[in-house]
């Protein structure tokens, strides 16, 4: 009996014994300390923070690089174990900021890419692990370069003498405008103030450094200035399955205005921001609340709308500039379905 039964206890005699239960419990407890045991030497949050310190690195890219480091430092001996470690690390990263959509989407995409086992089944673990690590590093590379690719793809849409309305402070949009100045295009930018985050002033300062003519508008002056605008360019916190985008509060308003006045609305978003969400209206989003300072004291019984972002449905968007190419909003759901199905 002992030769067929892998139980190391030689006193086993075929009935459920209490030592079985003890061993099962010990084995269950044993699995978790594998991660915590390496805690002092490796923490995914530490790695994440280390990457985030690099200037201009997006959160999601830092998360992806941190997850790649998890694979490298992993002592797992089977693919299942590696996957479990990655899932744990991914969950830890997502809990760092539960409201960030791009962080969540980036981690989910990473897990999807890295654990696709189509070619991994027949290989031994070390080859599979190095292949997975290769993919992870590659994904990190691609995500890092995504901004440059988007900037190059969007150049044709900016013509000489155009006026661009920008909302929010998106590093991708800034990259697009920088590349346009490098290509010697002449254009003018209108920035919305972006209360209460002051994004407008920050962006205007950056653009002034590039010698781009900038005009600041208060958020309510958008409709007033819309007829001199040729196009609206915004970034995105996340791109949802319907092809709509989730972005800083005010984007929906501006998109509605632009649509009613026949101005194109372009969204610049990296492909790791494609999320498996399908909001049907504004309240379907996970709330991301932040404090708003009105400058004067507001009595506590007055309610304040503190949401930081809104959802813009796809019918108000003209084009999405992504590192996968220039896409119409209907392509996004196609892409996501192909990936996850």
């Amino acid at each position, binding site marked *: 009996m002992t030769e067929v039964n892998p139980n190391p206890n030689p006193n086993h005699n075929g009935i459920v014994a209490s030592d079985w239960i003890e061993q099962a419990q010990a084995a269950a407890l044993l699995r978790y300390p594998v991660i915590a045991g390496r805690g002092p030497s490796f923490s995914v949050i530490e790695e994440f923070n280390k990457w985030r310190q690099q200037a201009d690195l997006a959160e999601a890219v830092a998360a992806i690089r941190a997850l790649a480091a998890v694979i490298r430092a992993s002592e797992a001996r089977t693919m299942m174990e590696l996957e479990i470690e990655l899932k744990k690390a991914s969950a830890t990263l997502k809990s760092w900021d539960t409201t960030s959509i791009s962080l969540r989407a980036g981690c989910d*995409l990473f897990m999807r890419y890295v654990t696709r086992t189509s070619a991994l089944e027949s290989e031994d673990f070390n080859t599979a692990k190095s292949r997975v690590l290769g993919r992870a590093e*590659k994904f990190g590379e691609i995500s890092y370069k995504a901004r440059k690719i988007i900037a190059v793809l969007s150049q*044709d849409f900016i013509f000489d003498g155009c006026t661009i309305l920008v909302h929010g402070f998106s590093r991708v949009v800034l990259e697009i405008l920088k590349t346009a100045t490098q290509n010697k295009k002449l254009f003018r930018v209108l920035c919305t103030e972006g209360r209460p985050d002051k994004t407008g002033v920050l962006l205007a300062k950056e653009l002034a450094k590039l010698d781009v003519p900038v005009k600041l508008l208060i958020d309510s002056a958008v409709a007033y200035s819309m007829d001199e605008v040729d196009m609206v360019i915004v970034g995105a916190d996340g791109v949802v399955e319907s092809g709509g985008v989730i972005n800083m509060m005010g984007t929906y308003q501006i998109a509605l205005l632009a649509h009613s006045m026949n101005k194109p609305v372009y969204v610049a978003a990296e492909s790791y921001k494609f999320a498996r969400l399908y909001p049907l209206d504004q309240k379907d989003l996970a709330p991301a609340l932040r404090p708003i300072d009105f400058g004067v004291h507001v009595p506590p019984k007055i309610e304040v709308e503190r949401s930081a972002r809104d959802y813009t449905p796809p019918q108000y968007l003209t084009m999405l500039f992504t590192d*996968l190419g220039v896409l119409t909003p209907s392509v996004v759901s196609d892409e996501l379905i192909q990936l996850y199905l």
Partner: protein
Amino acid sequence: MPDVQSMVLEFVNKLRKRKIEGSQATARCTVELLKSVVSHHRLPRANQASALIDAVRGVGAQLVAANPVELAVGNVVRRVLHIIREEDLSLATAAVSELDFNGEGMSAAVVAAAARSTLRPPSLQTLLEGTTESATVPYTFSSGVDSESKTADKSSITQKLKDDVRGGIDQLIKDITDCHEQIAEQAIEHIHQNEVILTLGNSRTVLEFLCAAKEKKRSFRVFVAEGAPRYQGHVLAKELVARGLQTTVITDSAVFAMISRVNMVIIGAHAVMANGGVIGPVGVNMAALAAKKHAVPFVVLAGSHKLCPLYPHNPEVLLNELRSPCELLDFGEFSDCLDSGSPLVQVVNPTFDYVPPSLVSLVITDTGGHNPSYMYRLIADYYSADDLVM
């Protein structure tokens, strides 16, 4: 080879002087020319597909530069390039799966999947597989063959690629020639009894479409806008009457007045762009706006050689052709105004109009009827991402 060169130069001349009219005729001539280029090109031992692609691309760039407004030329060149890549790929996977039987180690399915992804535009799925494994595939075919086969086999494999490409091009010629029948077959689904159809310009596709519905015993009326200044509408009206259809000719300015009495607007496109926007004869934008206002479906007919993978940037100017003002004004009529150094009168005679995708209800191609937002899919089927810039 010198024969092909002179053919190319002759065709370039014809294109530059706008001697060939119509996308279908231009597309056919371009394909025939590219077929001779492919047949006469001498292929090197290794990297045959790349050599063919470079040759076709060189000729294609000349043709596109000669007439940048005729998008069918660029479309057809890109189709041929896509055919070359596809045929090379299928030969490569066939060769690799043979090698795999000798125990080369790389699973044929993996290689095929990775290589196939190089032809499709970048997508979330293939983002990573695209570059890691594909770099090996296009070259294993040529190099693997070199080591395995003898010289007699080598020349037969050269021939194989050329034969396959020629076969693909013949299929393309057939598709271009048959597009009218394919589209006309769908007429019966869209035109119903006692309907009133509005059309503009003189498109052979529209003519065949309407006549096919007539053949199937649907009785309907056609309003034809005359399409000044060329009055192509008159030509179409005569042909429709010859085929027994009840026709009414209206002026272009009457389109908005009549649109409320119309059930459907059907026009033939000059080109359909990647965002679903349509380039058609001048006046279609006006008809599209009128149709939108009165909720009349705006249907566009386009053969697959008219699908262009580019996005339109300022199409009213850049993708338009200004014809001679003599079509509007007789010589001598305004000569006193036009004679001075900087005349106060200018005459603009554009050929094409751009209709944004939001105004188009349906695009009917030889594969069926599609939403304009679906164009990206058809483009991904027919063209490779590497060929967009020539």
